[in-house]
């Protein structure tokens, strides 16, 4: 617990974060990209085709990781919003600014890959069922957070507004998750659920797990690099920035 508290406090310190994140970013990019290459080649070239969908099921290797990660990022932004509201931690705001962009892109890609998948399987790219609509709402929430952040010049007040909207919008997450169980939808229910047997054959499952891990690592790297840039920009007048830049 002591260790956790110490790390938490250190992460709140911009110079400590700026130096510490650097080592992580390179590692995350290398591991993440390697996993993505392996998962993608395995998924496209070395898994059997599905009994009904044939080769079009392979879009799962891109659709599921992006969709899942985009929701995880939304939850993380809401948690950071809570941390900011309670402790006014600068780094929580820096995280939110960096993560909402990636969240928006990932949500957009999840929707796009869903459309590409829907055309050959459902017979349509888009319908307004509970799942697709709630994911579209998540995209609008991310865009709203980005717009709100940019619309308020005072960065402290902007961070406050973003935190509140992020926390209110987290209501959408259980709606996305359970939309396929609560309502009739065109989208199929989840294949991987806690407490239930996995409905994906093992030969098809591995690349999905590898691609998911790879995407998480790359996304963490992207967010950390963004955060470092934001930290530098915010602290540009401080002594440690001048020092760390001059010594390089």
């Amino acid at each position, binding site marked *: 617990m002591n260790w956790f508290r110490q790390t938490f406090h250190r992460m709140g310190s911009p110079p400590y974060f700026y130096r510490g994140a650097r080592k992580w970013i390179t590692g995350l990019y290398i591991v993440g990209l390697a996993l993505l290459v392996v998962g993608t080649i395995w998924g496209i070239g070395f898994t059997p085709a599905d009994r009904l969908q044939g080769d079009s099921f392979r879009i799962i290797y891109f659709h599921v990781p992006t969709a899942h990660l985009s929701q995880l990022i939304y939850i993380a932004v809401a948690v950071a919003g809570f941390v900011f509201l309670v402790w006014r931690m600068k780094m929580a705001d820096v995280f939110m600014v960096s993560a909402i962009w990636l969240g928006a892109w990932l949500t957009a890609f999840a929707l796009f890959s869903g459309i590409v998948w829907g055309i050959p399987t459902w017979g349509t790219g888009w319908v307004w069922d*509970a799942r697709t609509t709630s994911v579209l709402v998540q995209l609008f929430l991310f865009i709203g957070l980005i717009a709100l952040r940019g619309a308020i010049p005072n960065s402290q007040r902007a961070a406050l*507004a973003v935190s509140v909207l992020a926390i209110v919008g987290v209501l959408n997450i259980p709606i996305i998750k359970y939309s396929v169980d609560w309502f009739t939808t065109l989208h*199929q229910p989840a294949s991987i659920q806690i407490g239930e047997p996995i409905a994906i054959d093992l030969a098809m499952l591995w690349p999905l797990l590898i691609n998911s891990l790879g995407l998480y690592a790359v996304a963490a790297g992207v967010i950390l690099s963004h955060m470092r840039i934001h930290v530098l920009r915010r602290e540009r007048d401080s002594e440690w920035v001048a020092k760390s830049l001059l010594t390089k």
Partner: protein
Amino acid sequence: MVIFVMLGSVVTLGLAYYAMQQNLEFFYLPDRVVSGEAPIGKTIRAGGMVVTDSIERSDADLTVRFELGDLEGSTFPVVYAGLLPNLFAEGQGAIVSGTLDEQGLFHADQVLAKHDENYMPPELAELHQPE
């Protein structure tokens, strides 16, 4: 300002919930079609499993008739003229959009295939078949 953002988002969510109350369900299940809960003559969506051996194709044109049902024995007939999606098959889920007439026949102008959450190679699927 925090209160303003909070109020704004709560109002938006409230309105969205109000607007969606009627529309959250994407389609009528077979039992609701059979029981007469689904409105007649209005454009609606209904869905179910394509009943085995129920597909009848016309020799003259693209007209196809089939039945959609659930596991409890409620089924309703559908007539459709057009191309079916690749995944449309007996024993698989399908969603039709169109109108229901007084005789309980569904005139579809769109048919969508609803696939399930199971993914397996064809060889394995054969092993899973009961016969």
